[in-house]
């Protein structure tokens, strides 16, 4: 599994368990709960992709 994906699932678990215990229904319902998982993974894979692209450019520039 890609590192960005791993972070996405970890973020979703933290938001759902801790946020869910504190805020309850607004987080732990059948629409926003799964949406949090999907958005977390989409966000972290996007960030991870951008970072590796930036690193790739930096590497090219230095050579």
């Amino acid at each position, binding site marked *: 599994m890609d590192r960005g994906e791993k972070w996405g699932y970890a973020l979703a678990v933290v938001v759902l368990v801790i*946020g*869910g*215990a504190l805020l*309850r229904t607004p987080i*732990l319902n059948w629409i926003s*709960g*799964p949406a949090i998982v999907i958005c977390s*993974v989409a966000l972290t894979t996007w960030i991870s992709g951008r970072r590796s692209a930036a690193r790739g450019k930096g590497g090219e520039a230095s050579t």
Partner: protein
Amino acid sequence: MSWAAHELESYVMQKHTKQKVSYLAILLGCLLPDLFTKLPVYGLNIGDMTLIKVAEPWKYHRGWPGVGPTHSLLFIAVATLLFLAWKKNRAWALGLFMGGVAHVLTDCFDSVGTMLFWPFTTQHYSTGMWAYASQAGRYGDASAYYSSFGGVWDFLWLCIAIGGPKVFTRDYFFSTVVPADPAWGWLKRKFGMNEAVMLAVYRAYFIYGACRIFGWFIWARLLNPERGTQTLDWSWGGPDWVEKAPRTQGADTWLGVLANTAFGVVGVTVSGWLLWRLVGRRLWARAT
């Protein structure tokens, strides 16, 4: 009612089905009996106001008159046939049927149970494993459920789902789940999803279902202001502290239950057979 089991059982069924079946349809089937009917059970809370809440949620949710027929075998069969006529897809029809039946059977474990053989009998079937408690409101219900065998039941489903880890892997998703269902291709094209997001959509209800158990359990047992009186009660039909839903429709004697059951089984079997002979097999043959 079950809080997380309905989300988790979809993965278990997907794994154990030898036929080509749509995971999304199983999930939809698992949610179907409550999909358009659940709001009045707890009501809509706006500030301090509670709107459209029914006075007797157990009767509305599981009884007749009410929306109880959504938790019956024949309703699931008819919904499946209507879907088969509309989408002409066998993998979706099979998944919808499996998920719907799983929901109906799973809800037999609380104290109110379901009318399995409606419309032939309004007899409720229940093991009474934990107390149906939606009359205590959403948070009262959550506290009761996760302080009783309801929480254990959810945890059992989580263990069963985790017991087959292959079903959550990337390989399984792209080699088994995606080819069985054209909806994944449509989702990919429509929303421009990459592989990671498609996989997240597939895993989302598992992560949500699993976290829901722990989130609600932490709230019920550690943060709930009434946790002092709403104690953990792992007795059959517990917790004892919640207001019980009164006895719902059904015969008072075992003989009456047997008679209702016999009538219900025969009625559902005959009507199911007729539905299949007259409509179902033609729709199935026409579908791909």
